[in-house]
Structures are given as C-alpha cells and as structure tokens.
C-alpha cells in the first residue's frame, strides 16, 4: 500500500510528454512502462512499415513488365518485381527528400539556383505536411472531445474561401495586419462550419458524422457557386478566384522555386497550443472528460453542450486554418480543385498520431512526405500517386485494428484496454 513517505516525484517535462503521448499517466514500474510506451510507438511504426510492404506488392501486381518477365523465367520475374518496387520507392524517396548526389553536386558547383533546386524536395515535403498538421489537429481535437469531425474537408474549403476573400478584397493593409487577418478569417469560416453540426449535436442529438458529411457537400456547392459567380476572377473562364494580394501572402523564406513558408512554423506553434490546451488547462480537462464520458462530465458540473459546440468550433477553426494556409501560402488563389482529400486523410492522421498533437505532427510529416514524394514517383516510375491513398488506407486500417498488427508481429496484448475512439451510432 501507498505510504506517506512515497510522495510522488514531480515528473520531468519529457516524462510527462512521453506518458501523455501514451494517452495517460502510467504505473511507475519501469518494465511495464517500457512495454506500453513501446507498443504505442511500435504499432504505428509497424503499421507504416507493413503498409509500405503491401504498397510494394501492389506495385508489383500492377506492373505489366513483371508479368512479362515471369513469363520468361522465375528469376527474371523476381528481378523485374524488385526493379519495379525499387524504382518506385527510390522515386518516392528522392521525391520526398531530394537526390543526395544532386545535392552534393549542387553544393560543389556553388550555384545558388542549383542548390535551391536540389534541396527543394525536402522543403516541399514540409510544405505539403503543413495543411495536414492543421487538419490532423482538427480531427484529433474532435476525437478528444468525443466528436467525430468527418467534415474537415468542408471546413477547409470554407476556411479557404473566407481567407481568400479577405486576401483579395481588402486593399491597402500592411502585411503585418493583412496576413493575420486573412488567417483569422479562415479560422472563423471553418469554425462556423464546425459550429453548426456541433450545435445540432448538442441541442438536437443529430449525429455529427452525418451532419458534417452533409456540410461537406453544402460547402462544395457553395464554393462552386461562389467561384462561378460572385468570387469569380474577372475575365477568367475557369472557376477560380482573383489573385490574393501580396500583402496577405504568408512570407516565403527562400526565392523560387522553394515555396517553404511561414505556415509550417505556425502549424507547429498551433500544435503546441493544442497540446497545452488539452493537457495543461481545466478547459482541456473538461473537453477530454466530455469526450470520454459525457454523463460523468455533467455530473461533475461541466457544461456538456457548451464543450461539444466549442470542440466542434475549434476543430472547424483548425481545419479552416489548413485551408487558409494553403491559399495564402501556396496557391495564392482559390480554385475549385484545390483540396486533395485532406479531410479524409486527416482522420488517418489523428488516429496514427494517437490523437496527440505531437503524434499528429509526426504523422503529418510522414504523410506530407509521402504525398510530396509520390508526385515525383509518378514522373519517374510511372506509378500514379493515388498509390498513396491506398497506402494511407492500409496504414489506417492497421492503426484502427491493432490486433492485426499484433498478430502479424506476435506482439503481446496490452493488459489495459486501449482508450479507443468512443463514437456511437446515429442515435446521438
């Protein structure tokens, strides 16, 4: 039994961080902790690893040359299969991080443009990761509050719309005001789009999954209307908004072609803020309690309704920031086809990151890197970049059903049940 002399020691920041990453504080026994922390990190890693293997098998199965080579001989077939996979994945790697040989050559030549070009891929990966961080945080925050925000896509769209509007319509502002204003507009737009389903859930019990899906389509129709009507670029035949004014651009750190911009650091800052909010403040405690057991939250005197609405609004705001970040930092205008499924990917990110801000950041970096690399892989290896969606689906499947990973790699079952995502049916 515990005695008075065993005053708990104040854990260091790093320890708390690790333990919270592990979803909650853990028993202090050393061995137990290693096992648990080990699995929370091992399972995502193994999931990603297994996903890459399955992706490789998929590439082999869909490469005609492999079949032709197997027709010749078994060895040739294996060689062709290996070549197909290695070509694809090396394309993915150099696409994501850059070609080391080219980097060295560029550094030796000393030509600045060459250097920038050589190092661009890795920075481009960070650029691609940035909206993922925002969107992943959005979904993770929702999960922590027990709401399943499947509507990040719509909120991203609305955030992009409002940010774009502020970005091109208000003239004469200095960047120091215009940039934050446009970002804020994006957040507000997304927050509004999250608020509606949040309010409906809290007040009427209408399930947020259906409502956010509906809100997605309403957002698409609305953007379609705005971009072909009121917000259409004068003189353009395509549904695209006017160019955003340079004063609202998120500053880029290097000259062209490097698009790496301030948004990445804003995303990291926001991730820390979300972490602080969730785990250090009473508001975060309320949010997590409401998300885990709304009845107990009510019993403890928390305002469940307000917390659900707040969580959905905050989640929407984060998603809106993802949209604003893209239009202000990368595209500098809004076209109908600007979002490439961040909304659904963000669910995978949140789960891969165990709904923890740090986890989400790491997962976003991974996915951003994969996406960014896939574009180059498509060029060099002829593998459509949609392979990434397949990879993501497989990884998400393994994360969602860790039992599969445990079976494959013969890991032990954890003694305490994982705190899974607690989402019920439509009953509300």
């Amino acid at each position, binding site marked *: *039994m*515990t*005695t*008075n002399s*065993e*005053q*708990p020691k*104040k854990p260091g920041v790093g320890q*708390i961080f690790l*333990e919270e990453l592990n979803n*909650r*504080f*853990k*028993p*202090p026994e050393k061995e137990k902790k290693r096992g648990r922390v080990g699995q929370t990190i091992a399972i995502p890693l193994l999931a990603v690893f297994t996903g890459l293997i399955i992706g490789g098998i998929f590439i082999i199965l869909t490469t005609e040359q492999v079949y032709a080579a197997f027709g010749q001989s078994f060895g040739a077939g294996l060689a062709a299969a290996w070549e197909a996979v290695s070509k694809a994945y090396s394309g993915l790697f150099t696409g994501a991080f850059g070609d080391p040989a080219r980097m060295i050559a560029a550094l030796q030549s000393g030509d600045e443009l060459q250097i920038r070009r050589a190092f661009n891929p890795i920075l481009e990966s960070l650029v691609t990761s940035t909206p993922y961080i925002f969107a992943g945080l959005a979904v993770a925050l929702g999960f922590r509050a027990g709401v399943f925000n499947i509507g990040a896509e719509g909120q991203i769209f609305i955030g992009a719309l409002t940010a774009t509007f502020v970005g091109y319509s208000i003239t004469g502002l200095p960047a120091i005001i215009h940039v934050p204003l446009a970002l804020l507009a994006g957040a507000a737009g997304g927050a509004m789009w999250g608020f509606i389903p949040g309010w409906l859930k809290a007040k009427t019990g209408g399930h947020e999954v259906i409502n956010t899906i509906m809100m997605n389509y309403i957002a698409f129709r609305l953007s379609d209307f705005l971009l072909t009507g009121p917000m259409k670029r004068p003189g353009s035949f395509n549904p695209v908004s006017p160019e955003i004014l340079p004063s609202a651009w998120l500053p880029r750190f290097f000259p062209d072609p490097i698009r790496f911009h301030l948004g990445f650091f804003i995303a990291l800052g926001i991730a820390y803020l979300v972490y602080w909010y969730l785990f*250090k*403040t*009473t*508001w975060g*405690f309320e949010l*997590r*309690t409401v998300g*885990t*057991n709304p*009845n*107990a*939250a*009510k*019993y*403890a*005197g928390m*305002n469940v309704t307000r917390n659900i609405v707040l969580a959905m609004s905050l989640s929407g705001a984060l998603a809106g920031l993802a949209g604003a970040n893209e239009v202000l930092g990368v595209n500098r205008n809004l076209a109908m086809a600007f979002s490439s499924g961040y909304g659904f990917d963000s669910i995978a990110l949140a789960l891969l990151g165990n709904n923890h801000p740090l986890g989400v950041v790491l997962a976003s970096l991974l996915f951003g890197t994969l996406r960014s690399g896939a574009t180059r892989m498509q060029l060099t290896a002829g593998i459509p970049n949609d392979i990434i969606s397949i990879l993501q689906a497989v990884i998400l499947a393994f994360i969602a059903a860790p039992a599969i990973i445990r079976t494959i790699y013969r890991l032990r079952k954890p*003694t*305490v*049940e994982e*705190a899974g995502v607690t989402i019920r049916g439509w009953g509300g």
Partner: protein
Amino acid sequence: MTPVLELRGITKRFPGVLANDHIDLTLEQGTIHALLGENGAGKTTLMNILYGLYKPDEGEIFVNGEPFRVQSPSDAIARGIGMVHQHFMLIPVFTVTENVMLGEESLKPGGFLDREAAARRIREISTQYGLEVNPDSYIKDLPVGVQQRVEIIKLLYRNANILIFDEPTAVLTPQEADELFEIMRSLTAQGKSIIFITHKLREVLEVADIITVIRRGKVIGPVTPAEADQSKLAAMMVGREVKLELEKEPARPKEAILKVENLIVTDETHQVAVDDVSFEVHEGEILGIAGVQGNGQTELVEAVTGMRDVEDGKVFLMGKDVTHAVPRKFTEAGTAHIPEDRQRDGLVLPFPVMENLMLCTYYLPPFARRAIIQWDYVMLNATRLVQEYDIRTPSIFTAAGSLSGGNQQKVIVARELSRPIHLLVAAQPTRGLDVGSIEYIHSQILKRRDEGVAVLLVSTELDEIMQLSDRIAVMYRGKITATVSAEEATKELIGLLMAGTPLEDARQQIQKKATQSEKIGGAN
C-alpha cells in the same frame, strides 16, 4: 432417480480471477435449487457456462445422466435449458409474440412469419401456468413484472425443463417477488426444475428446496432450508460472521439542510416521474428512500443534485432556493453525490485514478490556478486519498476502469466525502459490491451522519434502507406515499408500502396478521 442436471468440477478462469473453482452441483427434478452467493462470487459465470455463453476451462455437465457438451445457447435450448437473465433479454420495439418466437419462428408456407400461430401458443402457455400477458403488446409498453413473465414464457415456448432464474427479484416488490415464487412453485409442481440464483437470504429460505452457497468461486454446502437460518447462510456466503444489524448511535437531527416542496420532475419521455413530493433532511440524520426500482427515485436524486431540471416545486439547500441550479451550484454549496450508476455517471473509466479524484473540483484552487491545472497537487491529493480510503490500486496513474467495483466505488466515496459537505446524496451506494466494501461504505455514511451531515439515502435494497435510515420514506409511482420512523419500520410494512398500499391499510393488515398468529399461537 437420475438428477436432471449435474455439474462436475466446473472451472473457469478469467485473467487474474478464478471465477469458478471446481464447482459441483446437482439438480433433482421438480425442485428449486438455490444458488446463493455475494456479488462477484461466480454464480452468474457458472450459469453462463451452463447456458453456453462461456466455455468452461475444466469440468463436465450431465443432463439426465448423459454428458452434455454445450457450445452455444442453442445447444442449451435444445437440451431444455432456459434462462431468465438478470437484465431482461427482450427487444423493446418488438411485440411479445415476436420476442417469444425469435429463434424458434413459426412459419407459413413460403417462409413468411406466422405471428398468429405463435400468439396462439403463447396464450396456451399463459393459461397453463397462470402467466397473464397480451401477445400483441410491445415490450417497451410493459411494466417490468410483466416483462419477466414474457421471459418465462420464452423458456416454456421452447419446452425448457430446467429453468435458471438469475437474480429475478431485483426489480420486484416483496409482494411481486412472492407472486414470482408462487409461479416458480407451480412450475415445479408441473415437473419443471429450477435453479434460483440470488444473494438475498430471506428468499432462499422461503422458496428453495436445497441451497448451494458459492463463495469466491468455490462451493460451500449444499444445505436444506431446514438446516439453515439467515445468519448461518450469511456466514457461509461471506466466510466469516456477519453482523446483520449495524451498530449505530441514535440520530440527533438538527435543522433542515435539504428541503423539497411539491417537487414535480419528468423523465426523458416527458412523463411525470416524481409527482408532488415534499420532504426534509436534517443535519445529522439519514433519510432513507425505499421503493422498487423505477418509481421515480432516479429522477428525484437527479433533481436534488441539479442533474435534471425540475418542472414544478421548490428545492432548498440550507435555506437557499436551488430549484433550477446546475450541478456545480450544488457541489459548491456543499453537496456530495454518490450516483446510482457509478460507471455511467460517477467515473471516467479510462482516466487515471488521480483525475477521477478531482472530477468535481478540478477548477478550484488548489487543483487549478487560473485555469492551469496544478498536477503536483492533483498527485498529492490522490496519494493522500488512496491511503486514507484504502483504495486498492496499483498506482494513482492506473485507469479507474481497471479497478474492481468496490474500489471504483471507494474512489467516488473518497472524492465526495473528502471535501467539506453538508448534504450527502447517496443513490444505491452499495449496488453490486462485495460484503467487505458494503460494510466499509456503510460505516463511512454513518460516520458522516454522526459528524452532522444530512444524508439522503436512496436504495432498492430494503435491508440497506432498514439498517442505515433514521427515517424511511417510501416512493411509489412517483409519490412519497408514507414516511415512517426507523422504530416502526418492519420489512413487512415497508414491503406493503412499496407495493402501493396506503399506510393506514398496511398498518391494519399487519395488525390483523399479528392478532391472527397470536390466536393460532394461543390455540396451540
């Protein structure tokens, strides 16, 4: 004669628990065999094994002398074994007929359901065994007593010969329970055999032909009712002498802390659940609210803790009007609340013990300073309470959900009683706990009373109400039909009141019975 059912050496292990340890049990035809044990002793596990819901690790089952390998409930049903579950296995949106025929459907040619044929059989069964029910009613519209009848009909419809009743009286009044016993006797008279699972001593002595006691997964006994009395059975059940009566000082009530006037509260379906209720709870006394489950106690408790809004009437806490106040106002005014359903309301199971121990006051200093949680203090507080209230947990970082039921309840008790309070609202504070935990929680409640806290105790366990309360109010269909002092309260009186008998009639009935038995006694 061959017993209809024989269990030999049944053993079942769950992670960390030996739920059944080589259990032997013999059921003779036409008898009622009681299976007595505390909560968590392993009775239900044993029956789930017999019914094919769990697989035993060791042991054999014989039905009519033949070995019986049960893989699934359908095997059990096929061999004539049926079970009335503690939580009814009925589908609320289906009719009685649909519920009964499910899995054993009568079909018309072409594969369509023949509801009429099934309803006809149900009527036959109702007449034969005196189980009145309308086959076309929807379950959700039926009161619990009738729902239980539907459960029994379900078994008879399948020609079950061995009927298992799992804690069947938990939801009934003593009088309704007597009715159920009548039905059970008529079933055995017609050749059925019954296993009767319970933890209530009185019922066992009243209805059983033979009693097997299970303690921590092991069989003690069997004994016959003639060989046993309540205290002997209690000792067999718990493994030591148990005081059936609690020692307590007489109450010294002072001024009213909680005052409720003409309270009207509705439930989720907007039906009146608490109907014009008035009462007072004074400093230093325990007011017990007795009643069968579902007579408005839940709503009453929620109304006087701010969890449910009040339709009409007033609630005063130490003179202040708190009628429409939110739970936090009650907490801040010094109310402690042990909720009826600890896992649903009282705890956040995946959260660590230390977070559960700050659940109601997390926003107040010293737990938080300007919305920043002071984790140092949270840990200190948890360490202190874990020790003081003897909460058995591996650490304060362990998820509350992985503790045993008794220790979960101790977490709630520790949290609620560790702050300065004037009123304690305890709803079903010992439901489903083992005897040790029950005794502990009772002693804590009494301790607070003696310190001058006003206690409102709501329980469907009549024994608990009788042991603790200084005054007893009986709720029936949303009304407090009577309030009696602890001295006057007898089980019989409260039982009659719980069934809706007016106080005067109940007194007279008891009087009459007393004189009658006196007469009989005198004649002898």
